[in-house]
């Protein structure tokens, strides 16, 4: 996360770090006790060699071996279910259910086909690149305003197809998502109720002025997610 601030653990208890060979590789969201929603591009294919991957949750510091270590849960991935063609989504079936604790909680999915009004401030979380803005290796959070697809398309000057399967947020210089935040969640809040509305996908550049970050529009794919839960569980 470029800009933003460190997170307190309970504030982002659904966030997981997808580890590849024991180093942080991508973000992800615990959407059920045994399912993680992430970016398909975090994997080389829909049938990757899963031996090298694991999922960490319930922690803030990537390299902390102290007190936090006992709270951390590490699970293997048993299966990758790739999303519909062009979605860039993947659901990861975990080898077991995550234990729900104060620091590990699932995040609700949004209503199918819903939309977040433009200018709503939503929140992105991750352990990715900070571009010198500090707190490397710690989960960070940044506020990003929702940008309509129409304006987002104009910002990107048509170079990226912003279809109804995508949504945009951010666009301020030095505030946004970056490498290794991909797969993580854009979360919007109403009262105390949070939902995951976006999954950060690999994009072009980080936190550039007038270049809002692009996310997979989770409400657009919510039916698919529920259908996977229904038949794969």
């Amino acid at each position, binding site marked *: 996360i470029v800009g933003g601030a460190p997170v307190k653990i309970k504030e982002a208890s659904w966030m997981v770090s997808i580890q590849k060979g024991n180093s942080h590789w991508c973000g992800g969201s615990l959407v059920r006790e045994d399912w993680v929603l992430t970016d398909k591009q975090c994997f080389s294919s829909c049938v990757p060699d899963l031996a090298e991957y694991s999922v960490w949750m319930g922690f803030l510091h990537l390299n902390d071996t102290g007190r936090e270590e006992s709270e951390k849960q590490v699970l293997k991935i048993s299966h990758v279910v790739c999303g519909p063609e062009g979605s860039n989504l993947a659901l990861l079936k975990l080898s077991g259910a995550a234990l729900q604790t104060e620091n590990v909680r699932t995040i609700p999915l949004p209503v199918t086909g819903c*939309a977040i009004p433009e200018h709503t401030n939503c929140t992105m979380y991750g352990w990715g690149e900070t571009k010198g803005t500090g707190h490397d290796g710690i989960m960070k959070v940044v506020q990003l305003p929702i940008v309509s697809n129409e304006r987002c398309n104009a910002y990107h000057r048509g170079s990226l197809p*912003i*279809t109804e399967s995508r949504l945009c947020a951010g666009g301020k210089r030095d505030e946004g998502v970056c490498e290794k935040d991909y797969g993580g969640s854009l979360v919007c809040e109403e009262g105390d*109720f949070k939902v995951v509305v976006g999954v950060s996908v690999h994009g072009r550049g980080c936190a550039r002025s007038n270049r809002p970050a692009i996310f997979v529009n989770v409400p657009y794919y919510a*039916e698919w997610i529920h259908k996977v839960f229904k038949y794969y569980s």
Partner: protein
Amino acid sequence: KHPRRNSLHDYRKSDGIHLFKTDSSLLTKSKSLSEVKCARRCSRNKGLSFICRAFHFDQKTRKCHWLSFDSNTPGVKKEQDFSFDLYEKKDYTRECIIGEGSSYKGIKSVTKTGLKCQAWASSVPHDHNFLPSRFKRKDLKENYCRNPNNETSGPWCYTTDPDIRHQSCEIPQCSEVECMTCNGENYRGPMDHTETGKECQRWDLTRPHKHTFHPKRYPDKGLNDNYCRNPDNRLRPWCFTLDPQTPWEYCNIKVCDVNAKTDIDTTTKCFRGQGEQYRGTVAVTPDGVQCQRWDSQFPHNHSYTPENYKCQDLRENYCRNPDGAELPWCFTVDTKVRTAFCTNIPRCDTEPPATEECFEGNGEEYRGHLSKTRSGVPCAMWEDNLDRSSATNSEIASLENNFCRNPDKDKHGPWCYTNNSSVPWDYCMIKPCKPSSNVIPTKSDPSQISCFRHKRIR
């Protein structure tokens, strides 16, 4: 204690070949001796009035015929005669060197820049001390390139150009005259030393190392003499060595820049013959079990890695035939099924590739006969899964056999159930006929549905 080196290792054998001399000045001598002793005498020139360059061994009479000539000598003809085996000294017949090439006895007589060599017996234009009379063992014949002083740049000669005294002949290393592709299974070049410089054992001998790779047993593997070969799909050409302590070693052979044979026979939709050139993306067995990745050792340990089989295109978990099996196959992710043949890939000559199909809208009206998921898993019969489906009666009517359908109006297109427990359902291998027209939503059409109607449930 090292056993005595078998002199047959110095020779190139040609089965059923007899050399017939038309020039009467060429000399021969005969005696009843074993092949090995015959070779030893020829190598040492013992009891011979000429320099032995080759010998015949008459298998019928068990008689040895030493020759002052070889198949390259003018005035000599090759004839087929199955009672004879011809053994020619490699040093005379090959136009490549091992190491510095001190034993080179070939007939090249031109330097690397094309200058004609000066005869060793001549002092014109360059006076020198490497006279044949002084260095009898160095074979300083005619004006042939030689290396009497072990130059690191290989055989050389004095040149006939008065301004250039001597120059290398740039005779290639035996490891480079023929390059290899893939694992070198088709390499038939003249390299006969291992990568650490050990001399190879002849394939037709079983000393110092016993083995079963006899040339007559594997006639198509090119197991001639003691050349580096790869008859058993190892990483590279190799050979047994003459060092009793080292059974075998790999050889260092030059790798070809491009594999000229690629792509000619390659198929992707079907396979020909045994499917060794199949390069398609089917990654599931006929029973719907996913294939294990070739670069993974889980759940099955194996040696068919992309590194070991460089030209077999062992990408992802696609069905392949890296080992000359009957059909393309793969390891499976089922711990109880190690490998399976991919008989779900059609043969090119019996089944034409399926025509391209597409669906309109969300594919609700699709009534085609496609019955595979996008990853190639066969669809299960709908009637076996109706209890899993919430389809209405009219929707059920469209659910024929195991064809891809869209009874729940899934906006991402037709799908099906499978009998594979790791893929209960998936979308089908079919694309929309037209790309989605609602690429950019209009300004006046934002969704009015709130995202926060959920209630937390236990």
